[in-house]
């Protein structure tokens, strides 16, 4: 094989590589990736407790982390296995057990304020990620049970430990709402 042939071969291969590279770069610059829709769909499967047990500051940041591949899908104890399964199905991955490093799943719970003990300090109000505690300084506080996600974030700020978590009250579920105006 003469040196010329080798030269031509290298030249052809290199030309092809450069052509493709330029074309791809140009294509990539033309087309904007749309990452948000995936984050939305992941976020929709998370329980929205906003509890931060996944060590992200809320459900949506965690969803963004999953979408970008920065976090695994096993970090959400409030969602439990059901959420992991749903995420695995959405992303076509194998379901995996929850990572115990992020806590263990608990039955659904809601916060309850012992109004005998509450001193009305209002420190729990800003802690609540979903505005489910009503109250004002030196007024009794109370938790809107229907809106509480049971995230436990109101526990640490309370100076008198008057907040406790109770199991979600059983709701009778009718299987078919009558269809009438």
């Amino acid at each position, binding site marked *: 094989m003469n040196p010329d042939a080798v030269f031509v071969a290298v030249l052809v291969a290199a030309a092809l590589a450069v052509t493709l590279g330029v074309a791809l770069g140009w294509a990539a610059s033309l087309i904007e990736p749309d990452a948000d829709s995936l984050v939305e769909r992941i*976020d*929709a499967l*998370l*329980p*929205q*407790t*906003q509890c931060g047990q996944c060590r992200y500051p*809320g*459900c*949506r940041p965690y969803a963004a982390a999953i979408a970008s591949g920065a976090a695994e899908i096993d970090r959400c104890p409030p969602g439990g296995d059901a959420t992991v399964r749903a995420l695995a199905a959405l992303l076509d991955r194998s379901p995996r057990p929850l990572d115990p490093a992020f806590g263990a799943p608990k039955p659904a719970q809601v916060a309850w304020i012992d109004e005998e003990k509450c001193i009305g300090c209002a420190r729990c109000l800003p802690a609540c*990620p*979903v*505005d*489910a505690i009503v109250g004002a300084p030196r007024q009794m506080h109370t938790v809107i049970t*229907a*809106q509480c*996600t049971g995230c436990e974030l109101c526990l640490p700020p309370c100076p008198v430990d008057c907040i406790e978590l109770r199991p979600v009250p059983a*709701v*009778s*579920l*009718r*299987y*078919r709402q*009558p*269809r*009438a*105006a």
Partner: protein
Amino acid sequence: MAARSTFPAGLVLDAHKQQACGTPIVDLPLPRQVALALDQGSGYGAEPVVAVGAAVAMGTLVARTDYPFASALHSPLAGTVVAIETRAAAVEGGRSVCIVIESNGSDRIDDSIRPVADPDSLSPEQLTQRLRDAGIAGLGGAGFPTATKLASARDRGAQTLLLNGAECEPWICCDDALMRSAADDVVRGALILRRAAGAVRCVIAIEDDKPAAIAAMTGAIERQRDAALKVVVVPAVYPQGAERQLITTVTGVEVPADGLPADAGVICQNVATAAAVARWATRGEPILSRVVTVTGSGVAHPCNIRAPIGTALATLVAAAGGYRGTPLRLIAGGNMTGRALASDEAGLTKAMNCVLVATRDDIGSRLGAVELPCIRCGDCSNVCPAGLLPQQLYRAALADAHDALRQLGVRDCIDCGLCDYVCPSQIPLTDRFRDARRRLNAAEATAQKAADARERHELRTRRLQETATAEQQAFESVRNRARQPGDDAAGGKS
């Protein structure tokens, strides 16, 4: 006139009607005690307005409601309220709060009960309110408040009042008996309902296996001389009497899956409800009693009985000659959709059209069933009156696959029980679907709660950001002002 079309499938079942239907309706003497369940079958309860110890007369209002899915209750006895407590009742879950009234033997009628002077002078809205006050609810089995249906029919401009006299479920014949004995009442009630609904036509649908009822109703209509009133004979196919299916049979129109019968231009009422409306018009009487079929191989003399609401089922069975043989199930309703009750102390409800005391002769096929794997034979989808694929739904239900359940129409299932009936693998499909529906609803409630939480969280995040930005701006404007060279204070210092 014969029916025009039909719904997807259905099946002809053994009717078992001859047992109770031969004899005239028996009037039950006033019982010593009644227990009125606050939930009369619609799934929603009224609120008591009497206290324990209160004296009541026949027709006294004992529970009222503003809720559109519940109906008011009136005392069928004159006497005293002796208890308001949770006890056995013929409702979902088997227990409900009941108002227990003991008779004092008198038949004093409440002062509020007066015949309606001229129902034709009332506007549809006034009529509807009066019917709501009278606690008129669907006597066909659903117990749904009639007034609520009338209002929605008016809102949606329904043109046809369909009186359901199909009575398709085996064993039940109380409507048949009522149509034969009180055809004029049914027609009179129908005319009032038609006015209240703002409808122009009234069609009375009766299955072709009830020639006597058809003849009686046709006769009553002829006496009325109203051209917009007619009887339609429909094939005796189960579940012909299901509201949506009957509407399709009679009008050829399907009710949208996510809509109401009124969207198909129809309001459907039971013939017994119409008769109750007539009683209200002639005597001012709210619903105090109903006709109920007491039947089954476990009853000595099956018959139709007019009994006060709240009468203990044991009393009804005793009036039908008492138990016979070895009764295995006490079913409120027919053998396809009826609810098996744990105790015969439960009281009669407005929604209860049948008390079926079943022995092995009646329900042996189900008791002896051995569940085998589904072989996808498709018999279930061939009979499903809702056009579903029960065999696919069954797999989705086992896997708890919510999307598939929704898509395959687990909520379009009308619980008729036909898929169970024909399944060669004897799988209790209907119950699996009920269960799957419950879990689906629970999951959707959870998802809805999560969505609400997310929305509130996002609002809060935005609010905090805005507050922070505002503070920042305020801070900066203060600082900028502090650095203004022309500022007096600054100038003074320099």
